[in-house]
């Protein structure tokens, strides 16, 4: 099956000590799993926070004794105060966007499978790879520390807390949303609860995360350009690799901008510069006299120049995995491989020129708003190319409805459902009325949040046999899929309605807004759907852990797939191919090749020995059509 091979240089021997093997490992596979575990932990924290928010929205002013015990100042008597809610919004968003949607798809699966899929022994710079994970982990710990210094009066008023900027203790973390808009985030304690030490730590955490991501991106790009095995031309790479590569380029060019913004913001907060703080701000009864001349809009520009590519950083790997998995289980080549590659690039490129659509109500010139609007809508073209190519891949196929395939199809569904409202929000005139309402919330949760997560679910069910040599339980997996799939639609479709009625985002409760009372049953419905969906994820966690030890054993190529990771053992040896690098002879999706012995042809399968003449099928047979 694996064709012509040759000896490769053993650059590194497998480590033997526990610490070098599992903790400070240089092996991209171990680092990938570390990233995935980090994301699995972070997503639990983020989901818990979203449940707390839903509880407060649907049953406001209810007495939750446990909250009162855990956060005596944030939820006095067990009743959540608005500051507490707003800090939940902030921490939920930050954790989910940075430590789940950026780590798992790229750092996790990309790290594990990009080198194997291009036939490399490891990443180009294993040490930098290790550093990128540990730096990211430090970023996560600093972010969690923000909960304790900002939300706990004991710590906040200790010497350490005061040194870090003090805090009111009325929250569970900083307040500012995941976008941390200035000047609220820039002026410190004068702006109220949630703007003390926790906000400093929030900025530091994001800055650390930027550095970690940059190290990762550098590694991905170099590895892909430099370490492809013999025969692995660019246009023979699996679409997953194209997606990870484009994602790495986006990260490489956008994270430095966020880093720059973070540095400026931190300077505003700590040394008294005025990059983002205008003069004469009024807080309560006091006027801020220490700052002059700064521009809060400047922060928005810097943030969204990063923030919009970040959206694609989250979803492109999911697109890659979906293309890969759809093709495998449809037993058909990806429809329009070349178009898919260009679409990925087009989405990545356009992603850099549309940040202004997040700022339509910032008072920007209508002319630039129109430019941003047109560029934004043009992203619909490559997105539609991808969608139709996915449908084309499925068209007329004899589909194998495995769990990963279900999630991949779910990804397509969610991407369309969430993306279509992007066409509404991308137009200035339609955006203005629904801006900062639940409509926006529903849009980006469906397309950036849930769709990306579905891509990752598809990926984990698909690659789990390769990573651990065992299948995940199929029955549990399908149950997980159906409840989650129906659940997320039940959560986010009603939110569109709420948004169109005018329900604003980031409000702790709506008890004072009588005209929204009619929506309350819908709010409760969404909360119940959210609770069911979140509880279902425990099923997934159970399946994951159980299958590592007890899952059905999987062979080398359990899905009858074609790419290089399926030519090596499950799990792969330390240097991926046991010292013999594979040679690639063909494209990644040769399913249903006319005249071939199997319905799939591995990338490593050499051509027929006999010379092939013009007009004859690739395998030396007359193609019988």
């Amino acid at each position: 099956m694996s064709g012509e091979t040759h000896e490769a240089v053993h650059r590194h021997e497998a480590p033997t000590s526990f610490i070098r093997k599992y903790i400070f490992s240089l092996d991209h596979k171990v680092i990938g799993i570390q990233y995935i575990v980090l994301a699995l932990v972070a997503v639990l924290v983020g989901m818990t926070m979203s449940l707390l928010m839903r509880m407060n929205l649907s049953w406001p002013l209810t007495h939750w004794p446990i909250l009162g015990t855990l956060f005596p100042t944030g939820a006095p008597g067990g009743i959540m105060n608005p500051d507490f809610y707003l800090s939940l919004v902030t921490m939920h968003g930050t954790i989910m966007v940075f430590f789940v949607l950026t780590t798992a798809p790229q750092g996790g699966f990309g790290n594990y499978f990009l080198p194997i899929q291009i036939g490399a022994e490891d990443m180009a710079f294993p040490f930098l790879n290790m550093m990128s994970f540990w730096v990211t982990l430090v970023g996560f710990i600093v972010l969690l520390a923000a909960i304790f210094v900002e939300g706990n009066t004991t710590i906040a008023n200790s010497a350490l807390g005061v040194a870090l900027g003090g805090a009111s203790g009325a929250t569970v973390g900083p307040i500012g949303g995941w976008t941390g808009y200035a000047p609220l985030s820039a002026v410190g304690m004068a702006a109220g609860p949630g703007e003390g030490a926790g906000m400093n730590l929030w900025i530091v955490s994001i800055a650390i995360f930027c550095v970690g991501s940059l190290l990762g991106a550098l590694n991905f790009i170099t590895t892909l350009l430099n370490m492809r095995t013999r025969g692995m031309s660019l246009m023979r790479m699996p679409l997953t690799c194209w997606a990870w590569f484009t994602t790495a380029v986006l990260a490489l060019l956008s994270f430095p901008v966020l880093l720059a913004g973070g540095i400026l913001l931190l300077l505003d907060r700590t040394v008294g510069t005025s990059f983002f703080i205008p003069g004469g701000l009024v807080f309560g009864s006091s006027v801020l006299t220490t700052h002059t001349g700064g521009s809060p809009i400047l922060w928005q520009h810097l943030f969204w120049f990063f923030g919009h590519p970040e959206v694609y950083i989250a979803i492109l790997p999911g697109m890659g995995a979906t293309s890969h998995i759809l093709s495998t289980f449809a037993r058909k080549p990806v429809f329009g491989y070349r178009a898919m590659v260009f679409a990925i690039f087009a989405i990545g490129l356009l992603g850099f020129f549309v940040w202004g659509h997040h700022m339509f109500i910032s008072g920007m010139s209508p002319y630039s708003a129109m430019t941003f609007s047109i560029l934004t809508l043009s992203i619909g073209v490559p997105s539609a190319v991808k969608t139709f190519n996915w449908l084309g891949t499925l068209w007329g196929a004899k589909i194998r409805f495995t769990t990963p395939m279900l999630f991949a199809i779910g990804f397509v569904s969610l991407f369309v459902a969430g993306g279509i409202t992007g066409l509404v929000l991308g137009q200035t005139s339609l955006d203005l009325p629904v801006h900062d309402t639940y409509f926006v919330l529903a849009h980006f949760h469906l397309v950036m949040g849930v769709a990306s997560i579905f891509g990752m679910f598809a990926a984990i069910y698909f690659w789990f046999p390769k990573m651990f040599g065992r299948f995940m339980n199929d029955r549990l997996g399908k149950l997980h899929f159906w409840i989650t799939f129906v659940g997320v639609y039940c959560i986010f479709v009603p939110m569109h309605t709420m948004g169109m009625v005018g329900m604003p985002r980031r409000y702790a409760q709506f008890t004072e807004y009588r005209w929204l009372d009619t929506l309350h049953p819908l709010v409760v419905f969404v909360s119940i759907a959210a609770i069911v969906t979140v509880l279902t994820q425990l099923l997934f966690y159970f399946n994951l852990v159980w299958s590592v030890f007890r899952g059905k054993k999987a062979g080398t190529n359990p899905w009858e797939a074609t790419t290089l990771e399926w030519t090596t053992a499950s799990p792969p040896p330390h240097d991926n191919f046991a010292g013999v690098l594979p040679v690639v002879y063909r494209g990644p999706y040769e399913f249903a090749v006319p005249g071939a012995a199997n319905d799939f042809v591995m990338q490593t399968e050499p051509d027929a020995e006999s010379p092939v003449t013009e007009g004859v099928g690739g395998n030396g047979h007359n193609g019988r059509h």
Partner: protein
Amino acid sequence: MATTVGTRPLTKTGIGGGPKSRGPNGNSSPKRNGHDRAFPDLNSAANRYRIGMWVGLASILMLFTALSSAYIVRAASANDWQPLTMPRILLLSTTLILISSGTLEAARRKLKDASSNAHGRWLLVTVALGIGFLTSQLLAWRHLVRQGIYVASNPHSSFFYLLTAAHGVHLLGGLAALAYLLLRTRAPQGDPLAVAKSQAGADAVTLYWHFMDFLWLYLFVLLFFVR
């Protein structure tokens, strides 16, 4: 022909998809399409340092692009901008870093000539010039501090301190890389892979240093000659 084809057989699809009609030679043989040279070869293994450096420079470029656009926006929108007078010692800094680029280039070429002694000497000169540059930058800071101009004094001084510090931190990284090259001069040079790696490492560090040189020139012009 017993296949489990699930679809109509495809005669021809694009690259990466299904089967393609091949030329008389079978155009998918690895010789035609892949890396033509022996694999894995030395150049490829060493080349990653050069590629990695270019990629890394792209991200550093973006960092300073973001900071300079903030500078331009802030300068254009403010009525509290008080231009600094240029500390004259910055001319010394500029001269030192310009010379250091030349000496490092000399060191890199001497590595090619396999006369390792000269290579090490030029490296030392470069390190000295680099330290000289940083000292001169610090003196410029002290000069401003003596006049009572601090980071938060006005937007121009904020940006001056910030940009020089950001550049200085990156230059410190460059000094660390030079120290690494100096250590490598002591390593035995028999192994061809080690030689290729040394050359690639020296190329990468030189590239970085030149970039820092041009970056300083750019920042210098931006800070004091554009208004």
